[in-house]
Structure formats: structure tokens, C-alpha cells
């Protein structure tokens, strides 16, 4: 049985073309790009090409606006720390309740250790940002607003261009964690006011261990990792040449498949959602159906628990993920679904299906066939299923 992989928001398969592009830079072109000899020079040229490939995907004005780092997490951390250093006299951060832990853990730490004031902006039941609250929170003490481009669990897209303009009106910097958005939706950073943007290679069929922070030309930046002069002194440490070159190739491929992502991949996702809702009662889609990534579906199955669902799906060769507490090692369900006020009857049973260009119609058929008996089996076992009528929830499913 061929496995069906629908967990591409967790990580993607490295494209074989990407691996091919990287391989020579391990054993043949192994030089250090900073070295004053031919070994280094050849690598330097390849890095320049890779940087331009990523620049094109982002629609950035200059290739030197890209600073390579080890991960999206490092990029998020660096952006926030830099803003606090360069924005003299400003000691407040604005972010959203549904950010990735790479942002939320960092701002919580800064709040605790440096006395930074953090404004956490909430979302509505569809996961849409409360823009009025965001605008109200901005002020003369805001150093940086950091709002993700698209949410990893629901795929909901935030209006980052507009949010950046609002931040600038208040004299604040704007950063976006675009780890889930880069490569999935078209971008034109040169036309936007976004100051900083984080991305990660392995989310777009690139390798793991490489990420980047885009810093718009003219935005002052203070490095988090200090040492040598690599990346124009903005991120020390010998360049991860194979990783950077792999990310460049991945960016080129993502751009080539961009139309496919918007049309065919989105079509697969829509067919899966509609099919699941038709076949399985007491289920609904979470997130904003009008404004979300083309590849992400988050479906909540009421009265059952996510880990149990995933284990049964895994037995059928289907890989997805869940916002349930039990899968993460934490004891609380997903902070994203809780911020959206998804009721507990459903939050524990929310399953995220995330597609990529490598998925096919056959994958959707497999899932549509497998899910109804899995949900039925667990509901039969659940003490709440038969009593559901007396436990009607207040929550209005956004999309049925």
C-alpha cells in the first residue's frame, strides 16, 4: 500500500532535483565561500545564483536583502531581537495569539526577562485577526509588530501588506513569519512595506537546516549570532552552501509550480473537504475559507480525539496531523484552535490535511474512503457521541 502523505505543513519531501543540485557541494565543490582560492570562488558563484533564485520567488528588490540562517525559528528570533535593539526608546511588541511557538515563546521570554510589554492580538472563530485591536495596540512605544503571513494549522492568511502599513504609521517595524506561505502563494515584497520576513527551506521541498530572514534594504539590523563577517556581518557562521543552493533550487521549482499550487492543489484540497463533510456528520472546517493557503484543510470531527484518529489513519497508510493535546506531548489542545474558540467537543478532534504538488486525486480518494469508518469506530466508543443532542455547542461552524 503506497502511503498517502498529507502532512506537508509539517515538512515536505526534498525534491530529487533539489538533492541533485546540492550533492556536488558536499564532496566536489566543498570550499569555504570566504576563502581566497578557486575552491571558494566556485562556491561563491553558486551561492550568488541561489540567492537570486530566492529573491525572485519573494519578489524582493535586492538579493542582499536575504540573510541565510539555520531555520525559520532562528529568523523569527533574530527579527524580534534586532528590532528591540534598533528601535531605540521602544519596548513593546505586538503579535497574534495564533503565532508559531518560534515567535510566542520568544516574546514570552522577553516579557519575563526584559520587562518588554507584549500585546497579543486575538482572532475570530474563523481565525481572522482582530485588525481594530491590532491598530489600537500600535503606538509610540511599539518596536515591532510580528504577524504570520499564513497560519500553519488552519492555513488562514493574514493581510500582512495592510498590517505593515499600519505598523509604519506608528513608527514600528513589521515582521512576518511566512514559513507556511513562501512557495505556496505569490509574493512581491518589493511592492510591500514589509520590513522583515522569515522562511524555511524544508517547507517548500528544500532541505532541512536552512532558513532565511528577508530584511528590506534600509532597515537597520543587529545580528543575533555574532562572529565572522558572513552575510555582510549580519549572520556569522560559515555559509551552509549545500543548504543555500538547495533552497535556491527549491525556490525556482516552487515558482515554476505556483499556478499548479493555486489551481490543481487547491482543487484537491477542496474536493477532500467537501467529500469529508458530505460523508461524515458533526464535522466542520476550521479557518477562513475565503482567505487561506491553497494546500491546507483543517477538519474537526466532534466527540472524538485526534491522536486516536491519526493512529487509525496511520494504519491505513495516511499521514496527517492533529491539534490534539495527546499528539504534541502537551496536555492542552492547540493554542490556535483555542484562540478561535473552537469548542472542546471538536478541538481535540481536529485533523489537519496539508497537501503539496506531489499529491494526486488518488490520494484524495484514499482518504475519503478511509475516514468514515475511522470516525464511526471512534464515535461508537466515545461516551459523548450518543449524548450529543444534549450537548449542543454554541460554536457556529464557519463553513459547512
Amino acid at each position, binding site marked *: 500500500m503506497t502511503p498517502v502523505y498529507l502532512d506537508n505543513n509539517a515538512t515536505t519531501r526534498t525534491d530529487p532535483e533539489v538533492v541533485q543540485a546540492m550533492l556536488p557541494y558536499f564532496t566536489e565543490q566543498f570550499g569555504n565561500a570566504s576563502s581566497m582560492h578557486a575552491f571558494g570562488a566556485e562556491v561563491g558563484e553558486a551561492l550568488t545564483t541561489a540567492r537570486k533564485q530566492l529573491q525572485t520567488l519573494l519578489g524582493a528588490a535586492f538579493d542582499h536583502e536575504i540573510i541565510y540562517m539555520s531555520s525559520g525559528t532562528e529568523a523569527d528570533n533574530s527579527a524580534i531581537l534586532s528590532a528591540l535593539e534598533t528601535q531605540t526608546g521602544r519596548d513593546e511588541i505586538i503579535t497574534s495569539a495564533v503565532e508559531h511557538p518560534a515567535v510566542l515563546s520568544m516574546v514570552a521570554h522577553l516579557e519575563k526577562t526584559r520587562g518588554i510589554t507584549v500585546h497579543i492580538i486575538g482572532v475570530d472563530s474563523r481565525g481572522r485577526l482582530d485588525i481594530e485591536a491590532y491598530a489600537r495596540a500600535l503606538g509610540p512605544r511599539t518596536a515591532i509588530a510580528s504577524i504570520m503571513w499564513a497560519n500553519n494549522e488552519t492555513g488562514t492568511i493574514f493581510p500582512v501588506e495592510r498590517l505593515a502599513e499600519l505598523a509604519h504609521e506608528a513608527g514600528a517595524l513589521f515582521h512576518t513569519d511566512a514559513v507556511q506561505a513562501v512557495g505556496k502563494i505569490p509574493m512581491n515584497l518589493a511592492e510591500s512595506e514589509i520590513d522583515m520576513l522569515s522562511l524555511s527551506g524544508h517547507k517548500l521541498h528544500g532541505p532541512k537546516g536552512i532558513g532565511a530572514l528577508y530584511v528590506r534594504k534600509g532597515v537597520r539590523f543587529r545580528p543575533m549570532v555574532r562572529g565572522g563577517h558572513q552575510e555582510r556581518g549580519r549572520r556569522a557562521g560559515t555559509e551552509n552552501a549545500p543548504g543555500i543552493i538547495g533552497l535556491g533550487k527549491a525556490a525556482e521549482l516552487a515558482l515554476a509550480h505556483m499556478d499548479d499550487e493555486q489551481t490543481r492543489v487547491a482543487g484537491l484540497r477542496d474536493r477532500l473537504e467537501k467529500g469529508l463533510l458530505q460523508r461524515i456528520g458533526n464535522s466542520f472546517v476550521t479557518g477562513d475559507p475565503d482567505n487561506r493557503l491553497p494546500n491546507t484543510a483543517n477538519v474537526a470531527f466532534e466527540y472524538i480525539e485526534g491522536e486516536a484518529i491519526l493512529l487509525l489513519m496511520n494504519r491505513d497508510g495516511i499521514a496527517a496531523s492533529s491539534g490534539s493535546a495527546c499528539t504534541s506531548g502537551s496536555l492542552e*489542545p492547540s493554542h490556535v484552535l483555542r484562540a478561535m474558540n473552537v469548542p472542546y467537543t471538536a478541538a*481535540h478532534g481536529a485533523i489537519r490535511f496539508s497537501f503539496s504538488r506531489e499529491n494526486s486525486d488518488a490520494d484524495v480518494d484514499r482518504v475519503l474512503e478511509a475516514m468514515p469508518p475511522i470516525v464511526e469506530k471512534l464515535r461508537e466508543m*466515545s*461516551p459523548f457521541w450518543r449524548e450529543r443532542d444534549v450537548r449542543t455547542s454554541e460554536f457556529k461552524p464557519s463553513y459547512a
Partner: protein
Amino acid sequence: MWDYTDKVKDYFYNPKNSGILEDANGVGDVGAISCGDALRLMIKVDEPSQTITDARFQTFGCGSAIASSSALTELIIGKTLDEAMALTNQDIADFLGGLPPEKMHCSVMGYEALHAAVANYRGEVWVDDHEEGALICKCFGVDEAMIERTIRGNGLTSVEEITNYTKAGGGCSTCAEGLEEVLERINGEMVAAGELTADSAFNRNTVIRPKKDGVVKLPPAGKQLTTLQKIKLIEETIETIRPSLQRDGGDCELVDVEGNRVMVKLTGACVGCHLSSATIEGVQARLIEAVGIPLVVVPVTPYH
């Protein structure tokens, strides 16, 4: 992915005794949908022999919660009430060949459900109505009595274990101190009763952590130097650094000393080198070490 034993997987994929027991005469409900797991245990007790003749379960929860529930029914069917009540949550975990530490609360949920069902059969009230104050973990609604039972039953000696076994402390974790208090008290009682060695018992005073009222030790005061001695020492130290800079085609000269500010002139390859700030820092560190007082090295332009 959790490291479940084959038996856990088997009892999850093919659970025995799941469903509703129509003629149950004892029902125990524990957990809640908001907490992520809940178990309803239904038992049929034969009145004259006081034997559990049948048991069924309904569980909302993860794989190990369902497997633990099923294991519980297998363990109690055919046992007298007294025999069943002697079972511990560890017996449930052992039956399944063990559970991951973070999942031990699933076995505790089974234990609690059994006690609730037997209490219901006997017409007793299961101590589930938490009186104000008795609730220690408000996130998961865990009271002191349950924490105490679980510490004793499993020989727990850390707060982390309490969270793994009862979920208490697994949410906002503001009850950590309350958990430590209970743990210390119960462990103390267990030591007195010879159930636990004093070494392994939890004791807040012996846990290694920074002292709240600790005293900061200041570094030894700097050498008492006259201004002349200080400048001379700075000059001598810079002379010892120069050869290594000259090897790299650069140089460093002392220009002036004002209080704790040491003015130096970098020349040659040092000027404009991206490492000049590193050089300054290096010179500064050497000077502070030699002179023994805080100094700031300030570069002045070579054309000054």
C-alpha cells in the same frame, strides 16, 4: 510518534469490551471532554458472590486511553469486588506491557473509573465533588485526594511524574508549588512508614536551585596604582600585544589615557579591517587583565 507496545496497539486497534452494558448496576464516569479524555466504566456485579461478571467501557481519548480502558475491563471481569479494588493503575500499565511515562495518566484514569463504578454500585458517593480549596490543579480539575492516592500508589517522587500520572500541573503550571507541598508531605509520610527511602523522597530544601537570598560575591578590588604606574602598565601591555599585530601587517600605539579611557591608534592592516572591533576588544581584555581595573579602549583615527 509515541512508543506504544504491541499490546497497547492491539488493544487500541481491536478493543475488547467496548460499548454499552445495558444491565450494568455500577457506572463510573471520570474525566471530561474539555480535558481531552473521559472514561465511562459500566460493571455488572453478581449480588450473592460480589463478583464482577461483565464490564464495558466507553472512552473519549487517545490510543493509550482506549487501550487502558479495554485492559481494565479484561482485568476486572471474573474478579470479586475486593480483588478488583486491590488492582492498581500500575497493574493496568503492566497488563499492556507498559505505557510511555507521559501517558501514565491513562492508567490512572482506569483506576479512578473502577473506584467510581464500585462506589456507584455500593450506593456510595465517589469523592469527585471537589470542595473549594481542595482542587489543586484547576486546569484539569485534579484534587489533593487524587494526587495523594497516585503518589502513594505509584511511589512518585517528582512533580513531573505527578503531571504524567494525573495531568495536574500540565496546563498553566501555576500549581507547581502546591504540588511540591503535597509531594513533600506524602513522601515524608511514606518514609516514616518505611515505604520509601529517605534518599529518594522529595524534599524542597535539598533540591538544588539558586538561593533566593544568595549574596553576590564581588570580584577582588583593583590594584591600587598611581596614575603614572597605571599608564606605564598600559604602555607595557600594549608593547607585548604589538608583535602579533605587526605579524598581520598592522599596529597599535598608545595615544593617551584619560581616567579609564585608553586612546589607541590602529594603523596598517588593522584600519578598516572588519575585524578591527574584535582587535579593540582583544586589546581591551588584555589591558583589563594586566591593570586590574575596568578600562575602555577607544580607537582614534590615524590622521588625528
